[in-house]
């Protein structure tokens, strides 16, 4: 992406950002709340149109795409939302199957959702097993714990059969042990399947442990972009060293 800015009308969320990510890379975006992490991920996945600048995925600039081409591109981006975006009052399997809607015509999706073919269900089960909740296939989604629901969201993104996984604050709502497990899981499935992995994280220690490339964001701009071994602790302290007026300024900004 080149010179990307995003403005929600309350001051810029991203300021002329340049970023290049290679296929198969694993990148963590870190930074305080309101730094623009969520906006960046949404722009990268093609679900938010930047106010200026261009985002290109596989060399195709998103703003030149027709709605159908944009759908195709989005279907290749598995997004795990901070608030998951699952349908709570249906079975887990249905949430997972919904991952593939982007690749189906409307009639085909009716069939796939209401009368799912056996091989789809088997595959959904296989993926759920991979993320550790295989026996939850036919549970109602809102009966699951927060951590399990998170894994449903991961399974849905994987069932989508994407080229990249984007995770927005995937561990903001679980305890540290589970957080570590989940990040390890994301990292491992991304490696197994050769997926690009982009995650926004609050937890610098986790990011350092699991990601070979860290991008520090602050107030919509890139503060640093390096591998963790080259980064002294001082850099992180600076990133999170908020001045009082900045903390007040964060109130009301979009989270992430």
């Amino acid at each position, binding site marked *: 992406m080149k010179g990307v800015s995003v403005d929600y009308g309350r001051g810029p969320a991203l300021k002329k950002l340049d970023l290049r990510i290679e296929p198969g890379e694993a990148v963590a975006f870190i930074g305080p709340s309101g730094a623009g992490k969520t906006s960046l991920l949404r722009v990268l996945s093609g679900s938010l149109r930047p106010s200026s600048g261009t985002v290109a995925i596989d060399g195709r600039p998103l703003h030149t795409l027709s*709605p159908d081409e*944009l759908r195709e591109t989005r279907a290749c981006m*598995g*997004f795990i*939302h901070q608030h998951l975006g*699952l349908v709570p*009052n249906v079975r887990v399997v249905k949430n997972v199957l919904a991952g593939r*809607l*982007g690749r189906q015509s409307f009639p085909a999706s009716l069939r796939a959702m209401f009368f799912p073919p056996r091989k789809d269900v088997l595959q959904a089960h296989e993926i759920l097993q991979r993320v550790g909740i295989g026996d939850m296939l036919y549970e109602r989604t809102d009966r699951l714990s927060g951590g399990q629901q998170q894994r449903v969201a991961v399974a849905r993104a994987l069932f989508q059969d994407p080229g990249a996984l984007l995770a927005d604050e995937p561990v903001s709502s679980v305890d540290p042990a589970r957080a570590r497990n989940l990040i390890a899981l994301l990292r491992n499935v991304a490696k197994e399947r050769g997926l690009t992995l982009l995650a926004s994280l609050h937890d610098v220690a986790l990011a350092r442990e699991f990601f070979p490339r860290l991008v520090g964001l602050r107030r919509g701009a890139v503060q640093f972009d390096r591998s963790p071994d080259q980064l002294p602790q001082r850099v992180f302290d600076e990133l999170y060293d908020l001045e009082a007026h900045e903390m007040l300024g964060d109130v009301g900004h979009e989270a992430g």
Partner: protein
Amino acid sequence: MIGRRGWVLLSIAVAGLWAGWRIDLDPRDILPNAGGMQVAREFFARALSPALTYESTTVVPGASPLLVKALAAARQTLIFAGAAVSLALLIGLPLGFLSSTIWWEADPAAAESRAGRLLRRTVAPLIYGASRMLAAVMRSIHELLWAVLFLAALGASNLTAVIAIAIPFGGTFAKVLSELLDEAPRDSGAALRAAGASRFQAILFGVLPRAHSDMAAYAFYRFECALRSSAILGFFGYPTLGYYIAASFENLHYGEVWTYIYAMFLLVAAVDWWSGSFRRSFAA
């Protein structure tokens, strides 16, 4: 001091008293005269002893026993209500969808074509406004009034009774569904959009399910209302419970009236039980 809420309650009370004074509400009016007292006493005396056989001495030979007839009338009432609610859903659900805003919101990421902008800025608001208006007109006329109109225009056929109920009920279904859809959480729909789902896929699989259980509960409640309405339509000559209640009442057969009233009560209780068990299975 008196807060905001206090003011609201106070003004409601004042408005109520004023309205009562304007239309000369007098508590003494409710006390019946001697004749009325006699009727009321006879009527309520039978409340605990509904008739089990016909009270009339001249029963038509071959007529089915009273209890069988009451059950048949209840069944007929149920069928009318079922047909009316089904038709109302058939009208109300598409209309409710059209009168919601979820189907024409702009995609925050896609470039908008000229045709798309025309649709969103002009055509869609027109459809939205027209369907809201249509739904409002449908439900602003009560089913009894529709029935009277149809009776005058088309005569008493069972279809007119069903349509009379289905029109205002369809209008209410449209209103309630559109509000449920507009207020349903958007996160799941947005997540599906981000995964490439089309607008209608996202609505069907991401937004509609969020309004599902509320809509089902509301449909059951309206079914109960339809039972009452279809019973009352009997007073206009349709073969539902109201028809027999009116006939027995005219002949001063209060015991039979109570029999039919209890049949109605059973019917409503049964539907209530059915909707309860349905919702429990929904929640499970």
